[in-house]
């Protein structure tokens, strides 16, 4: 099962063909991340990260509604998102912009909704989601001359 673009896995297979062990383990980490957290949570993070990084291929969702997709960039004031969504999206944005500056309030806000285990799992899933997009963007820049 995957929530990301159907074009992403083939890109990874091509670019990591010289390192099959890494491809296998990275794919396993992606699959585990998808299984470990709620699909809505996963896609809120995946699509918002895509918006911030400019990952055009990941700007679609089978989980989020059309209204949610249209309002995602305006999540602080959009009525489509509840308190948990806002806590998660605030954390995701700070993670992408300046991960070393995440403060206690942002972290505790997510813990209040997901609990300690849920927060720890979400952090690991976020690592996978962001990393896959940054890898794909880097490969595009290096090998295709596009972002």
């Amino acid at each position: 099962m995957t929530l990301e673009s159907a074009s992403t896995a083939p890109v990874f297979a091509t670019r990591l063909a010289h390192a099959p062990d890494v491809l296998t383990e990275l794919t396993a980490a992606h699959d585990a991340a998808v299984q470990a957290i709620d699909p809505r949570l996963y896609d809120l993070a995946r699509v918002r990260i895509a918006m911030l990084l400019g990952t055009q291929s990941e700007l679609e969702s089978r989980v989020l509604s059309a209204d949610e997709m249209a309002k995602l960039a305006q999540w602080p004031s959009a009525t489509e998102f509840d308190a948990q969504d806002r806590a998660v999206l605030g954390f995701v944005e700070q993670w992408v912009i300046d991960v070393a500056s995440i403060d206690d309030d942002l972290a505790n806000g997510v813990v209040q909704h997901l609990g300690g285990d849920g927060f720890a799992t979400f952090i690991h899933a976020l690592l996978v989601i962001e990393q896959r997009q940054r890898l794909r963007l880097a490969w595009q820049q290096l090998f295709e001359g596009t972002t």
Partner: protein
Amino acid sequence: MTVRSPRLPKGSRSHPELQRALVDWQAAAVRLDQVDPLTTELVRLRCAQHHDCHT
């Protein structure tokens, strides 16, 4: 130096399969030997700086 309080409640654990998958992936990446040691170390230190990682 940044001073932080623990963010994870004591005893919190990530999903075991995801945690294991991440460890296995990182191990596979570390085993790669096609990048020279100096470049590898530069990347490692730059990542540590970006993440404010002191380990």
